[in-house]
């Protein structure tokens, strides 16, 4: 399969480390600057990977969910120094709870968006390549589970198309009949998916999956580019972890909003975080430019 971007061509260990770091940091760092960096980078990278589909998902799916999550928080949390007004119940509506609601929503949306990038880059063969030797059963189950939803969706389309040919699709007949047809399709699908899982497991066993001494074919090579990426990831990740442990990214929302601001150390941490999050985007832009230059040079020599 053609790679979606330059980073998808990197060694699976590099990709996995990148997503591990980015996801963990997105979940831990509640500093507003970090949340903004993480969310915007995730948006940018998902659009680079998935194009128009990602734009639609991010703005029609994630944004409304973010707003909902942001407005739910002040309905349940009333802590905070700055009282804006009072809710009908008599509990206060505070600025801090609204701000925290937005922060939590940004974190949630960022993590979901990062996972959409993860799914596009870390295909199941990469995952099995990384963990097939160490935890064969678990990695097979995981990759089968992750494959399940897209596979199920594709199969729904097949079954529903076949049923439509004999006039028994959910689009045929009265409301009761449609429901009955839907139930039939669902039952077919469940049967199919169970059988499919057993078949996959049997087929992997018959190939000797998980036996000691079994080698696996892979086309992943650890190149110089991967070594550089790994070093960059470790440097950024280590600096960020150390800086966060020293309190450079400290932030609190309750009872008053307070935290590390714009001193030099914190700004260097924001820069490191931005560099870490945008690493694949940088790599892609750099390789695209190199490709363009190479083509121009070639074109120039012909002329």
């Amino acid at each position, binding site marked *: 399969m053609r790679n979606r971007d330059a980073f998808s061509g990197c060694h699976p260990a590099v990709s996995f480390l990148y997503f591990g770091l980015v996801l963990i940091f997105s979940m831990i760092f509640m500093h507003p600057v970090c949340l903004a960096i993480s969310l915007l980078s995730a948006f940018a990278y998902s659009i680079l990977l998935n194009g128009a589909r990602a734009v639609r998902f991010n703005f029609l799916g994630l944004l409304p969910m973010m707003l909902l999550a942001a407005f739910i928080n002040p309905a349940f949390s*009333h*802590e*905070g*120094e700055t*009282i804006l007004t*009072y809710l009908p119940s*008599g*509990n*206060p509506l*505070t600025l801090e709870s609204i701000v925290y609601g937005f922060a939590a929503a940004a974190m949630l949306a960022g993590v979901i968006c990062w996972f959409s990038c993860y799914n596009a880059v870390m295909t199941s063969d990469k995952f099995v390549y990384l963990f097939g030797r*160490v*935890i*064969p059963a678990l990695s097979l189950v995981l990759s089968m589970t992750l494959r399940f939803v897209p596979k199920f969706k594709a199969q729904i389309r097949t079954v529903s198309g076949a049923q439509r040919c004999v006039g028994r699709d959910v689009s045929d007949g009265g409301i009761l009949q449609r429901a009955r047809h839907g139930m039939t399709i669902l039952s077919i699908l469940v049967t199919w998916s169970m059988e499919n899982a057993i078949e996959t497991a049997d087929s992997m066993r018959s190939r000797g999956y998980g036996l*000691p001494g079994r080698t696996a074919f892979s086309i992943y090579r650890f190149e110089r580019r991967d070594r550089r990426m790994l070093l960059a990831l470790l440097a950024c990740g280590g600096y960020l972890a150390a800086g966060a442990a020293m309190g450079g990214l400290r932030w*609190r929302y*309750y*009872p*008053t909003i307070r935290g590390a601001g714009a001193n030099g150390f914190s700004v260097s941490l924001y820069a490191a975080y931005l560099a870490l999050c945008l690493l694949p985007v940088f790599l892609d832009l750099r390789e695209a430019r190199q490709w363009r230059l190479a083509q121009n040079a070639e074109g120039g020599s012909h002329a």
Partner: protein
Amino acid sequence: MKAWFSRHRRGAAGVVFLALLLSAAYYFGGGAPGLRGWSASAPQAASSVQSETGDSSAQAASSSAASSSAASSSAVPAASSSASSQPAEKADESGPAASAKKTAAARPGGTRGGMTASEKTAAAKEIAGGNGSSAGVEQGDAAYSEKQGMKLDASTGKDQYQTAPVPEGKPVPVEPQDAVITDRECTCTFSISCAAINDNLSWLDPDKKELVPADGWLLKPTQVTFYEGESVFNVLLRTCKQQGIHMEYKNTPIYNSAYIEGIGNLYEFDCGELSGWMYEVNDWFPNYGCSRYQLQDGDSVSFVYTCDLGVDVGGYSAAAGG
């Protein structure tokens, strides 16, 4: 060794992974000693001088200080286990030997949610010295309460909202849905104090230290107007709105009352597992919720923050049992 490892690599990896997972869960889940982590991170030990001055300021400030000091002096010093934390007890064992570790361990329940209700009552009993309620907390009188109109269940001895009989001479609960509020204006004295936190500052959530005034008063005793028939909760809600004091409550249907979770951003459990808000009317800590206490003209109401389930403010009732 190598052969063994290559044969059992899968099992070994599984065991290591499981151990890492469990230790991470233990570390972050709060089951570990101390606030979070392997060793108890010892907050600065409140020196005996500090706690004595804190105590005296509390005596000067709090109207319940008399009963508070009575409670602590009557406490049996034999309660020398980790839960002992009364200033009076601290005084006779707070040499340098009673190290920082002691203070850290004395914070009842290191983390939020670390103790069950029965553990909490047991800890409070130990702090109180095992000899029952605070001075001034009287036994309920079933006959008197029933004469006043309280309907007690014969099998449990409590009314339908889990309230035990009130002591003789005290008002019985009035359900908020039955209360008749008239136009007659009355006044009461109203105050909110968190002076008890100043005695246990090392237990307090560090983010909240700035919220505690030096003298402990969030609202000094003030004359407040209310309408006849209103409950303590009505007055608290209105007064906090008027004074711009933050207050959060939650309705608890089984007690048919509001539960005050936090005032001035100081919440329950912010100063140890046994901390929270209590209220006192005319030097009595009612054994029912503040929505059910109907105020009379001239009453004196104070909300006080306790760090020891009421022992430190003189409102501990051995019979309450959570």
